[in-house]
């Protein structure tokens, strides 16, 4: 397959360039090995209750796992509502200097350290959401279980979801924008050719890009799942499992951030935490693998 010279070149690149593969394998193996103890000792019962009591070596990870999934779902909803319009605005409505300024702002948001979001969210966003979203929703719709509890501090699953959502908006927007702009121009011409208005043509183009948009959202969900700093500062850190979004909760990464430092003092605490992150890592890797291959396949189909 290779000529001799090519083979030498290939081999000289090999040792350093397989680092990505090595890192992935080593990471997953390490977490899996470290969580074996907990999985053998507690079995699946570990994910059936919500308790964190290392003194008595009793653990249950239901609340953080559910909390991670709920916050990510809220984050996804937030990102969905904001990202698609932002992508459309950049692609359809803005031109020239304004377009490049807004694209740069999106890029700026995307690379901004999450700790900056976390500081802002805990000091400004949470009180704002408490006053203008949680309290109105609670007093207007108290009979819906999701809104049934009175927001006390504001630090809650809901606040964490919105805060994480805001932080993944640039990521999801970039993915949607890439997909939207890679639709060949002939589709748009065809839309205008049959007399469609801009709204109608956007609707058609969006439906064409739907698989890629869903994949972008899946990737966003995977990213929201692992978010740590924003989650710890806004979720309220409580092991109590509630059906209400306005009650403080936990996410897996928030639990680890607050408990891992002292976990070595107890027999099973560390390995329990490793098994909790194992769940998140496996879901995140599977989702992002699915998302990125879907986008590639969509591009091959639509963009010839």
């Amino acid at each position, binding site marked *: 397959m290779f000529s001799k010279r*090519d083979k030498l*070149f*290939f081999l000289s*690149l090999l040792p*350093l*360039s*397989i*680092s*990505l*593969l090595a*890192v*992935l394998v080593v*990471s997953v193996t*390490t*977490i899996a090995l*470290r969580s074996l103890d907990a999985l053998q000792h507690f079995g699946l019962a570990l994910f059936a209750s919500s308790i964190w009591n290392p003194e008595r070596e009793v653990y249950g990870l239901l609340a953080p796992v559910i909390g991670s999934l709920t916050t990510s779902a809220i984050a996804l909803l937030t990102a969905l*509502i904001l*990202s698609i*319009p*932002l992508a459309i*605005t*950049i692609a359809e*409505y803005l031109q020239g200097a304004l377009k490049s300024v807004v694209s740069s702002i*999106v890029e700026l*948001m995307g*690379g*901004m*350290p*999450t*700790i*900056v*979001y*976390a*500081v*802002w969210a*805990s*000091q*400004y*966003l949470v009180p704002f959401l408490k006053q203008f979203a949680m309290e109105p929703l609670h007093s207007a719709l108290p009979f819906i279980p999701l809104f049934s509890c009175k927001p006390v501090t504001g630090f809650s699953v809901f606040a964490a979801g919105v805060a994480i959502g805001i932080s993944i908006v640039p990521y999801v*927007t970039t993915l949607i924008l890439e997909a939207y702009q890679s639709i060949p121009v002939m589709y748009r011409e065809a839309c205008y050719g049959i007399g469609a208005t801009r*709204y109608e043509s956007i609707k058609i183009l969006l439906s064409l890009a739907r698989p890629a948009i869903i994949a972008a959202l899946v*990737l966003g969900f995977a*990213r929201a*799942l*692992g978010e*740590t*700093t924003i989650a*710890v*500062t806004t979720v309220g850190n409580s092991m109590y499992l509630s059906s209400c979004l306005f009650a403080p909760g936990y996410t897996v990464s928030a639990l*680890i*951030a607050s408990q*891992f430092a002292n976990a070595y003092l107890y027999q099973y605490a560390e390995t329990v935490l490793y098994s909790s*992150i194992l769940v*998140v*890592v496996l879901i*995140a*890797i599977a*989702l*992002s693998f699915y998302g*990125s291959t879907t986008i590639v396949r969509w591009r091959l189909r639509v963009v010839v």
Partner: protein
Amino acid sequence: MYSWRKLREKLFTCLIIALSVLAIAPVLHIILTVFVNGFAVIAKAGTSFFTDLPPTPLSKDVGGIAPSIAGTLLMTAISLPIAVTLGLFAAILTAEFPSNPLSLAVDAIAKPLASIPTIAVSMIVYTLVVVPMKSFSALAGAVALAVIALPYTYTYFSTALRSVPSVYREAAFAIAMSRWGAVVRVLIPVARKALTTGVLMTVARVMGETAALLFTAGRFRTGVSFSPTAPADAIPLLIFDYILSPYAVWHQVAWGATALLLLAYLMVFLATKLIVKEVRL
């Protein structure tokens, strides 16, 4: 009928623009509040903010964040070459052998690798580096940072190398250059600006990372240390601890440190923009 279509068009445009404004409003508010709060603290503390140790919880004085600045500089300096070297080699491999199964595999796992939560990386490095070394260290922190930066660095670099038109490579082979020669003397020089941007983006990612350092770097805040094997602090780590604390003076320090971090990030970001502006092949 006709007027309904026209009205719907207008309503749709208004809704889209309004939601877009809502989408970018947070970042503007973040920059505003961080700078207003943070620079007030830095102005109050003066230059000692960069040279002093952090205050005790009940002190009146704001003090400084010198240990964290030193730690961030040190860990960035250690992790950057690791991530850049590994990322560059992987990018050369996938750019030079695009259809090789190994290249396809490397390319396919870049996104999943980036999706591993950073706190998981912190736990992995804790097991593999901190426990065997029996102490937290700047080195462990830097390894965690390099692991997190690697998939991003690889993606920047491979995009940069693939954007080089193939005529350059063909020209290099036409004058009997070896494959390595073509890479080192043609491919990399042609893509140098995009590659530099990639390095800067890596710096931006590495210096702002928090969760990766939680269980790796340690939290050495009682002096300025530049030893790789000793525990170190980092600016994001300090912000994280202090903003979660109940003490007013620590909150102030956290705001000051956040403003400093954001300013550094904005400067790196601006630098990447200035470089990209010049790229015209």
